[in-house]
């Protein structure tokens, strides 16, 4: 008992001493203030109550302890190191050291003293959160989670931090060095280690996914316990180590032995936990490798088509037992001697039979090769039954992803959430087709062709029995009897999903489609929040579905649409073979529990906020109108047009991009309905899907990313394709949004090619019909080719080889824009003509649209209804995407080296001609040619719209002109950027300096960043460089070699966006009309630019006022230059915020 007494005494007074230290007091007061405000601001009835944070109640203790833990992990370092520093003042502590207590008691007492102090603070902070939780009636209380998060965050973090601090102080005995090391370790955890190697170094649980579902609780209890025990035991081991090396003569052999024993036990336990984590990571990796290798082995083998599947499944807690009756057809051109199927490798095949006869089979990891004992001739069918049992191996589902936390990070609010592909527990089950929980006649991933996919439209039936009495949810008509649930989908499906849990359901039938919501008890909060919608709901749903059908030019192909609530940890990886995510299945969408991570889902709070805002603005709106608005916003943002921002790591490159919402209904209108396949171009379905679902039409660049200076997706894609072909890129299987953006550009190119020859409207009409006729059928690309050829007399197939395998890009040069107002049939119309040249060796396609009168972009007809940006957003917006393509005036196919005079007559006065160069060398790919002059002609004129091939004009400019662009060798932006040694050490590269961007709204670089805009000077790449205003020490230099002495006019190029241009309306005969300024504009960030022109008589300093300069070449003087190098320098000093430099021109004066 003296152990407890002595250790307790030391702990008690250690607590008193630390509690009275100014450092801890400051931390405590600061924490209490911050967390009180945070809890009141977020969770109280008067707070913001953001839905992501209040939808699942365990988020309240989670956010409190997660944030507090970061702070206390650092503070505890100071306090722990301070304790040993105090002990170093020997005379102070010697009076204690001479007391009869063991070092074991003393160090443990100290440790416990600090722990209990922090535990106290944690409990106080949690009490604040709990108080807000209780008084906020809209949030239920998960009291257990408060305790669970203390065990997860506080205890292991503090024990580890203390142990490490004690040990380091005991060994190093230098407080400053110990601080530095410990703070370095804390920083490394937060910025480097948190996601690596299965979080094996994440002692703070900074990145560890510990999000708790109300349905299944923690998704990886064993993993979390092991990870936290690793650090708890490591901390204890270091505390024991401190006991043993403590600078005080020991007095108890028993306690010394105990310390040694605990040290050994703690080290062993810690090593064991570390080993478990390591093996989990390596097992995961090996599974993926094995799956990939097996796939590689079988990817060139032929598989049958699965036409009918009937599954009888029993859910037995953490395992399933199933029998699958399969009907297959051989649609290959050659006979099948063996049947190949894939099944999740953790499911064990017990028996395969056909007509009550056992069949031989072999298992290759997840591939089953069945020997039917006969040959299945092309076009013939066969049936067999596969009996299997077992669990699901999650690593199998996405073999091309590492499973690393940072690969496609999944977050709700600030918290990392596990990426669970399935759930198989006593009380809940979720199996999607991606898990291959039933045999399928394809591979889940084709390593040589990651964009390849084999889709079978299969007639399924499913019988489900649960020993736990859970409610089953799947596709199709549901029947329930004593034997369990039976599901019979009305149409063939590409895959079957099964969910089982304590589900409740609501059903509504609108326009012959049955909409079913399957939710967990109490999670239908939205009914209470949207009470006014009861009568209107059918109309709202009908309206949304009609909009979708119009947008996709196709009817919704299923009779039901089920919205199924699943645990928040459910996640699907992106795939190269499709843009469709596993959250959206045929006729079924899997939604996170309580819609926790969905945009605009907190209807109640949003209603209150908007009501208040409207009252402030004296706007009147009825509750019903407001609820309709909220409902529509929610539906559109999540199921139709929303985007998510993704923070992704691609090898060592980290990037931020936006991707379509995971819940978009788009796949129902193409991917789950139609399929085109080609053995020669396995990517074809993904390309069709990408274009037809126009998934990134509105989500191509959110305002946020645009403000950060991100490039448009077409530009990203074209830059990627500069060095490699489409097929090479796909074989590399890059992560992030690379494949998605390239698929988009390639798809747009292909469909624009088809439309260019077939006619836009004609092709669209025919293609819609074609898709309807081939619904739930897989179409060979060769058949599509012959059908297109027959209909339009155009063979697109010869273009595909270069399109897929070619490295060369076309490039377009445009010149001679001329717009005339003409009178045709006694009506004023506008004739737009310009010359287009493709000097490259491959054909190219570009499309043309007009920007009409009025501010900003005209609304997009047809598909504009869902645009979140609306008119005038100034965003890059590539026309010619999706089925509508009604924004395009003309599509032009330009052969290698071909030049055409393009002419279009339009009814609306164009303000600018907008050209989308699609797949081309042009950066940016969207070229705005402003219409500065409109020539008015009073005469009646015959309009002509045909293109006229003309003899190629020279690309070379005037021989008397020397132009040095920022892309040219004569241009210099100073010394190359030297990356800091630490950055080099950790492989952190400065992406901004290397690739093109757009001028950002914030985070402006201090170095010269290449930026692109169609108004900048350039051949294909219309770029400039810009930076934050500096002190003049980083100038730009344009140098040219003067071969002919004489007087030269020197010009600098100023490129301005459309919004900053002046519009002139020139009368015929060149009379200048009144200069019209656009409406109110924000003050320009570009102001005075200071050029130095070097010439024979010295240096001339010229200031160019950016705002008043022309958006073209601006003369900066005439100078005599002899044979030598001419130089123009632009300083980075300015009174504006930014400085930009583009091109300089010297023109010889004759």
């Amino acid at each position, binding site marked *: 008992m*003296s152990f407890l*007494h*002595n250790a307790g*005494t*030391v702990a008690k*007074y250690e607590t*008193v*001493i630390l509690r*009275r*230290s100014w450092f801890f007091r400051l931390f405590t007061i600061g924490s209490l203030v911050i967390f009180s405000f945070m809890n009141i601001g977020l969770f109280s009835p008067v707070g913001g109550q953001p839905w992501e944070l209040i939808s699942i109640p365990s988020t309240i203790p989670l956010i409190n302890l997660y944030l507090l833990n970061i702070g206390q992990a650092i503070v505890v370092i100071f306090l722990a190191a301070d304790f040993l520093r*105090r002990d170093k*003042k*020997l*005379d*102070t502590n*010697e*009076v*204690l*050291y*001479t*007391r*009869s*207590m*063991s070092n074991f008691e003393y160090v443990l007492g100290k440790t416990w003293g600090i722990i209990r102090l922090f535990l106290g603070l944690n409990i106080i902070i949690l009490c604040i959160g709990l108080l807000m939780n209780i008084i906020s009636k809209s949030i239920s209380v998960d009291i257990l989670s408060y305790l669970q998060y203390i065990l997860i965050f506080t205890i292991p973090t503090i024990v580890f931090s203390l142990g490490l601090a004690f040990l380091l102080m005991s060994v190093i005995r230098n407080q400053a060095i110990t601080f530095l090391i410990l703070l370095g370790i804390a920083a490394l955890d937060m910025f480097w280690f948190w996601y690596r190697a299965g979080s094996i170094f994440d002692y703070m649980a900074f990145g560890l996914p510990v999000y708790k579902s109300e349905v299944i609780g923690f998704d990886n209890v064993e993993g979390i316990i092991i990870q936290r025990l690793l650090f708890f035991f490591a901390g204890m081991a270091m505390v024991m180590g401190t006991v043993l090396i403590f600078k*005080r*003569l*020991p*007095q*108890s052999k028993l306690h010394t032995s105990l310390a040694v024993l605990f040290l050994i036990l703690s080290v062993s336990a810690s090593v064991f936990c570390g080993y478990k984590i390591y093996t989990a990571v390596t097992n995961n990796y090996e599974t993926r490798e094995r799956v990939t290798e097996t796939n590689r082995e079988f990817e060139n083998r032929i598989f049958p088509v699965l036409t009918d599947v009937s599954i009888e499944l029993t859910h037995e807690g953490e395992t399933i037992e199933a029998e699958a009756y399969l009907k297959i057809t051989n649609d290959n051109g050659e006979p099948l001697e063996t049947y190949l199927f894939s099944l999740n490798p953790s499911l064990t095949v017990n028996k395969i039979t056909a007509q009550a006869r056992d069949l031989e089979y072999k298992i290759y990891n997840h591939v089953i090769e069945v020997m039917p004992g006969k040959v299945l001739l092309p076009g013939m069918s066969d049936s067999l039954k596969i009996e299997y049992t077992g669990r699901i191996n999650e690593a199998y589902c996405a073999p091309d992803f590492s499973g690393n936390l940072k690969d496609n990070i999944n977050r709700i609010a600030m918290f990392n959430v596990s990426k669970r592909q399935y759930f198989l527990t006593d009380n809940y089950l979720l199996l999607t087709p991606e898990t291959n929980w039933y045999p399928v006649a394809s591979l889940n991933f084709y390593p040589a062709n990651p964009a390849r996919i084999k889709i079978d439209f299969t007639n399924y039936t499913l019988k489900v029995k649960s020993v736990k009495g859970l409610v089953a949810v799947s596709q199709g008509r549901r029947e329930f009897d004593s034997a369990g649930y039976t599901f019979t989908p009305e149409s063939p499906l590409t895959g079957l999903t099964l969910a089982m849990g304590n589900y409740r359901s609501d059903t509504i039938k609108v326009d012959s489609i049955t909409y079913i919501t399957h939710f967990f008890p109490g999670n239908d909060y939205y009914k209470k929040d949207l009470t006014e919608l009861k009568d209107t709901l059918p109309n709202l749903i009908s309206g949304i579905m009609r909009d979708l059908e119009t947008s996709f030019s196709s009817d919704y192909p299923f009779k039901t649409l089920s919205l199924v609530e699943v645990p928040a940890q459910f996640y699907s990886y992106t795939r190269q073979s499709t843009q469709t995510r596993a959250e959206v299945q045929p006729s079924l969408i899997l939604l996170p529990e309580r819609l926790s991570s969905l945009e605009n889902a907190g209807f109640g709070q949003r209603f209150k906020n908007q009501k208040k805002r409207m009252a402030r603005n004296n706007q009147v709106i009825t509750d019903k109108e407001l609820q309709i608005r909220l409902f529509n916003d929610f539906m559109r943002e999540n199921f139709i047009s929303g985007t998510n921002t993704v923070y992704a790591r691609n090898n060592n490159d980290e990037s931020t991009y936006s991707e379509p919402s995971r819940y978009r209904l788009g796949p129902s209108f193409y991917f789950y309905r139609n399929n085109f396949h080609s053995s020669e171009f396995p990517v074809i379905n993904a390309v069709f899907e990408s274009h037809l679902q126009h998934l990134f039409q509105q989500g191509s660049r959110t305002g946020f990313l645009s403000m950060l200076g991100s490039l448009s997706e077409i530009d990203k894609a074209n830059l990627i394709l500069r060095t490699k072909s489409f097929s090479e890129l796909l074989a590399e299987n890059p992560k992030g949004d690379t494949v998605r953006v390239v698929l988009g550009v390639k798809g747009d190119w292909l469909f624009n090619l088809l439309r260019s020859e077939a006619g836009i409207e004609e092709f669209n009409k025919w293609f819609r019909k074609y898709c309807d006729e081939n619904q739930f059928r897989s179409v060979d690309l060769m058949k599509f080719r012959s059908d297109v050829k027959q209909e339009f007399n155009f063979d697109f197939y010869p273009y595909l080889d270069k399109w897929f395998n070619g490295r060369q890009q076309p490039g377009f040069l445009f010149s001679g824009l001329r717009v005339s107002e003409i009178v045709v049939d006694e009506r004023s119309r506008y004739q737009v003509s310009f010359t287009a040249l493709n000097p490259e060796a491959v054909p190219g396609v570009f499309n043309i649209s007009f920007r009409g009168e009025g501010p900003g972009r005209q609304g997009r007809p047809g598909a504009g209804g869902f645009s979140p940006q609306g008119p005038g957003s100034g965003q890059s917006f590539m026309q010619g995407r999706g089925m509508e393509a009604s924004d395009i005036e003309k599509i032009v196919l330009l052969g290698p080296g071909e030049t055409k005079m393009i002419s279009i007559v339009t009814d609306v006065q164009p303000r600018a001609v907008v050209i989308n160069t699609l797949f081309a060398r042009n950066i940016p790919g969207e070229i705005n040619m402003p219409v500065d002059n409109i020539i008015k002609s009073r005469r009646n004129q015959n309009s002509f719209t045909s293109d006229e091939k003309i003899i190629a004009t020279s690309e070379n400019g005037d021989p008397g002109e020397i132009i040095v662009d920022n892309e040219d060798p004569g241009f210099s932006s100073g010394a190359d950027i030297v990356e800091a040694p630490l950055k080099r050490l950790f492989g952190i590269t400065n992406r901004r300096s290397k690739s093109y961007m757009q001028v950002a709204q914030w985070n402006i670089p201090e170095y010269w960043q290449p930026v692109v805009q169609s108004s900048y000077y350039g051949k294909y790449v219309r770029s400039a460089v810009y930076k934050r205003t500096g002190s003049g020490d980083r100038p730009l230099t344009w140098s040219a070699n003067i071969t002919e002495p004489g007087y030269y006019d020197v010009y600098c190029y100023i490129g301005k966006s459309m919004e900053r241009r002046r519009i002139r309306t020139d009368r015929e005969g060149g009379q200048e009309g009144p200069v019209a300024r656009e409406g109110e504009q924000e003050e320009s960030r570009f102001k005075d630019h200071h050029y130095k022109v070097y010439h024979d008589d010295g240096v001339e300093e010229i200031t160019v006022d950016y705002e008043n300069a022309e958006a073209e070449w601006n003369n900066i003087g005439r100078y005599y230059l002899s044979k030598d190098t001419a130089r123009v320098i632009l300083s980075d000093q300015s009174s504006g915020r930014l400085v930009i430099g583009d091109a300089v021109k010297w023109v010889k004066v004759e």
Partner: protein
Amino acid sequence: MKIEIRGLNQIYPNGNHALKDINLELGTGMFGLLGPNGAGKSSLMRILVALMKPTSGVVLVDGMDIQKNREKLRFMLGYLPQDFRFFTSLKTWEFLDYSGSLAGMKNRKERKAEVDRLLDQVGLLEVRDRKANKLSGGMKRRLGIAQALIGNPRIIVVDEPTTGLDPDERIRFRNILSQLSRKEVIIILSTHIVGDISSTCQGMALLNKGEMVFNGSPENLVNQAEGHVFRMVLSPHEYDIVKEKYNVISTVPVETGWEVQIVSDDIPEFRATKVKPNIEDAYVYYMEHKLRTYITD
């Protein structure tokens, strides 16, 4: 109760031989360890309180080797280190309570009573709720002795307790120690202030450069200086000669020059009268004269 020190040697890693073959036997009462700075007093003290392990030799308390029985020794020990400062954020009573609790006083009520008793004994009861940084230097020393006394220790080791104290506090401190020495305890007082020894100690040892050069009672030390302490009145010129030749203990200016007290084995050449030595005179005689002679011989 007795403490036996046998063949104690302490050699530090830097080669400094801090204690050289110390042999000593201590009984109850107060024992003074006298010696100049660096003589090895603190090393001996730290070994006695089991803060340090000797290089060789043993210390036995009632026949029990303290290095093998640290737990028992520490239970019977009260220690006041030379530079005693306690945690600034603890109140006076809290620190005593902390010490008392670690001294084995598990009963909170008894501990509280003992804390107050000791605070009263050392005159700190009025400041029981005052934090350390608000105490004067003397108060801190008194608190130090109080914490050394809590738990009724049988061996009390005090290292340089009066250094830096004003005369009043020093007298007060000596009185506290004197009172304690009447109990059945061994008090080991290490000091370089000779006065601390004469007024309180029954026995004493003299340490010099790690060696024990004297072990006996203070009276013995004084007796050894008997007849070797002289007083004389000197002119300035004579004073210069005497200063060079003898160990001058004190110099007082008088009308005709200087009244000087010296220690010497021989009778000085100048007009000198023998005076009765006190312990300080004896200490100087011993350290500066006898030891030198001893070393020379």
